[in-house]
């Protein structure tokens, strides 16, 4: 639509630009003053709507959450200031530690998506006929909503008839109800989460591999580099931008894990698969109670963990900007 709308207008207006210099001297100084001011003012006009929305919905709420975490509040009634009592309660809250531990588990195991994505990318980086379709089908899990991924894996893990149980039985083992077993439940959910995440990393690396310098590969080949050596010393260093993004999105994905826990187990059995994001939601909004202050305190902890990674990311971006990439 914009294509058609723009073209005639722009050609219709271009004569006006060339007509500019013929205006009288007086109006010219006024207009040049306006142009000078305009250049100062313009960025703020362009920024205003986006910045206002972002301040209202993202930046201010962070501050508000920090503030709410110092109160006892059910979301409707009066807020009671209780200082750091919510945080002190966290220290003795076993459910909190379970969630924290699971978050660490998510972070560590989710990182497997990066090398796994690289391996699949290397496997698919060929020029056989039909390879493009293979690439898109391998990428498929990322396009599907996590809710659907969760449902798919709940079905996959279902005791008695699930595909996973059948596979175990086929290999002569006894079936396990993964999602009902405290020992395995978090691992089971993480595997479900890895599925789309590996696809994401794969696509990043496929693009990266596409841009690896052929000269360097040739040079390394002449020097006798092959296979793993080539990968490690020649290819991976060149894939650094892709690796960086893959690591960043994987960390964020791990800490944001909520949908899968929610759909697959609701944090169960007995809260053993909770992560901080889910525990926070439970405390603040679900049937377990409307403890907004306590929920906010959990969110602050999660935010603090994320802030470490955000800071590292910003520092690296700042370095790039200074070097003027």
């Amino acid at each position: 639509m914009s294509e058609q709308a723009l073209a005639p207008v722009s050609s219709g207006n271009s004569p006006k630009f060339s007509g500019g210099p013929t205006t009288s001297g007086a109006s010219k100084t006024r207009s040049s003053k306006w142009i000078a001011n305009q250049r100062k003012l313009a960025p703020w006009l362009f920024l205003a709507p986006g910045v206002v929305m972002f301040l209202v919905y993202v930046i201010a709420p962070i501050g508000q959450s920090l503030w709410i975490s110092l109160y006892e509040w059910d979301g409707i009634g009066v807020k009671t200031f209780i200082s750091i009592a919510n945080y002190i309660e966290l220290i003795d809250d076993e459910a909190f530690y379970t969630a924290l531990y699971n978050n660490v588990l998510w972070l560590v195991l989710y990182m497997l998506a990066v090398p796994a994505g690289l391996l699949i990318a290397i496997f698919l980086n060929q020029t056989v006929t039909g390879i493009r379709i293979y690439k898109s089908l391998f990428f498929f899990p990322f396009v599907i909503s996590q809710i659907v991924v969760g449902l798919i894996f709940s079905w996959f893990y279902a005791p008695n008839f699930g595909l996973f149980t059948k596979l175990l039985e086929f290999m002569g083992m006894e079936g396990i109800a993964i999602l009902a077993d405290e020992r395995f439940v978090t691992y089971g959910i993480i595997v479900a989460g890895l599925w789309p995440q590996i696809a994401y990393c794969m696509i990043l690396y496929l693009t990266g591999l596409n841009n690896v310098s052929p000269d360097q590969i040739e040079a390394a080949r002449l020097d006798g580099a092959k296979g793993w050596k080539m990968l490690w010393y020649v290819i991976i260093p060149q894939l650094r931008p892709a690796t960086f993004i893959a690591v960043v999105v994987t960390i964020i994905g791990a800490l944001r894990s909520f949908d899968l826990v929610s759909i697959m187990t609701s944090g169960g059995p007995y809260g053993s698969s909770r992560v901080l994001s889910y525990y926070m939601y439970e405390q603040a909004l679900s049937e377990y109670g409307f403890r907004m202050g306590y929920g906010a305190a959990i969110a602050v902890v999660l935010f603090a963990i994320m802030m470490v990674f955000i800071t590292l990311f910003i520092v690296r971006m700042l370095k790039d900007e200074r070097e003027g990439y």
Partner: protein
Amino acid sequence: MFPTPVANASAPTRVAYKVALPISLVVWLLPLIGVMVTSIRPGSDLAMGNYFGVPSSFELGNYLTVFQNTPMGLFIMNSFKVTIPTVIGAVALSCLTGYALATYKFKTNLWLFFMFVAGNFVPFQILMVPVRDLTLKMGLYDTVTGLVLFHVAFQTGFCTLFMRNFIKALPSELIEAARVEGVSELRIFWFVVLPLMRPAIAALSVLIFTFIWNDFFWATVLVQGTHAMPVTGGIISLNGQWVAQWHLVSAGSVVAAMPPVIMFFLMQKHFIAGLTLGATKG
């Protein structure tokens, strides 16, 4: 090219590769294939324990049941009502912010940019209580509008990052030349820069469409009833309703996943360009 093209490899390797490709794909998509087959299976198959064999009949009726017996149509409608305005809003706002941050030099430029970037990575839970409260106070709780407003604001962060880097990579001579000609800033944006941003707009639109369509968290936080619930939230309630009726759950899942999947296959080039922006930089 790495690894060495199989075309240059020995004949057995070539054959092995061509055999390995489809097998690995089937293994990779096994859970998905299972669900798709289940979605066309008659319920009686599941009752008789025929979970993995050939379906005894192709039961497209499962899909009909999903639409007839549940508000699935409404959920899908709501998802479109949330997703499309969000895409338009977030992309429009970020065209403006991205342009401002990419082409003007002012003191706070980099800090504003970092604000958008950092905000984009924040965990949702730190925003949850205040955003829900704000939406309640505005009388927009449990409405599509309330959800759209939040999504637009939040997605502006990611979109600004994207747009700013895209415009920054455009040749600055174009803008300089227009300024020398005395073209107003607004006209430069509209007639010079915006037409060049079409690929970025396309890429962002597909990405945001997928992100928002697949959002579940905010749908549960800001919406309660059926009337404004997007499909991700809706399917959860259906899942509770259809205990052990996996043929219906599967059909519902396939329906819910369809729009972003179609979008992906139609706009694949843009989708991947958007997702991998920066993966090759440097």
